[in-house]
């Protein structure tokens, strides 16, 4: 039963890798990177639940929390850079 979480995480990771390489559009690539991040976080949290005691392991929870905030700020910077880049391409 707990292997299904890992399987879901691997499916998300491989699917978003394919779309990240294939898509030419910026927005699609950004969405693919975010889904890739969510898949990796799912792997972490599934590992955290995989303990014999009934409390889940809090160390992967803290790492995933950090990861989500860093992913959002990196997405914001990427959006800013891509808007600037597309404006420069328009003016050429």
């Amino acid at each position, binding site marked *: 039963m707990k292997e*299904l*979480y*890992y399987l*879901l995480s*691997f*499916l*998300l*990771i*491989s*699917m*978003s*890798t*394919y779309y990240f*390489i*294939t*898509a*030419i*559009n*910026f*927005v*699609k690539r*950004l*969405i693919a990177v*975010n*889904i890739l991040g*969510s898949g990796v*976080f799912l792997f972490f*949290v599934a590992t*955290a*639940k*995989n*303990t*014999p*005691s009934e*409390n*889940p392991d*809090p*160390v992967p*929870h*803290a*790492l*995933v*929390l*950090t990861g*989500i*905030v*860093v*992913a*959002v*700020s*990196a*997405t*914001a*910077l990427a*959006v*800013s*850079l891509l*808007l*600037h880049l597309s*404006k420069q391409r328009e003016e050429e």
Partner: protein
Amino acid sequence: MLDIIIGLLMLLSAFASLQNKDLLKSGVFFVVFGFMSGLLWIRLSAPDIAMVEIILGSAITSILIFKLSKGVRDIAVKPEIWRKLWAGAGSLVLFVFLTFYLFTVREEERVGGLVFEKLSLSGVESPVTAVLLNFRGYDTLLEVGVITLAAIGILALEPKRKIYEWNDIVVWRFSKMFLPIIALFSLYITYLGAFSVGGAFQGGSLLAGGLAFLSLSGQKLPIRENPTLFLAMLSLAVFVAFAFAYALVGYGFLTYPLELSTLSIMLIEISICLSTGLLLYIAIRGRL
């Protein structure tokens, strides 16, 4: 059974988001994906992560994606067939390579037991907050540094013209009415992180959500630029000041003494809450 339904919905919405030609529909399916992902965190006994994922990962990321898809011109180029082929082969190899892990999955006690043993020495009662701000405080310090750097980069790339003209007075009035309640509640959730579900980033993301609603009305926060910048950069300053102060006094870099640990954690958490909210507001608006 419920997990299977949530997992299938996650896969379907991720596939629909990535496969769609229209950028707007991709964004909408991405919101659904983020929401299902948040539900899965709750099923996996991680309520702190669920709060942060639904607000930041689903709502705020999709605001940014919609803003980007409004500002760029659509590139109508199809990828060549060899690109699809080697991308497909590569991701298939990756999937098979990762699936080998499924044969070695073991249920073992990792570092979690150590955390629960030393929890009384950390100054807070919630294990996630203890790990986040005491046992692995370096990660949080560098994370605050990363989000501050991202905000500085966004401020440096400030556009000279607006991406969209949006001026909605009803939304502005309502967001002005609700913003004090949201700010109070976010501080309450930050305080609650010491002994229950909550913490600095949950409160900060709640404040960011309220400020995002304000910025969607087209108006900005009625505070002048210098105080806003000061409050936004405050958490990095407070965190680094605490780290160096404890180093100078003699305890070690970012090592709290046992009596002052609760007080230090609470002060650092409040500053992180305020700053994260304001930094994400700057990131959504694109300007100060």
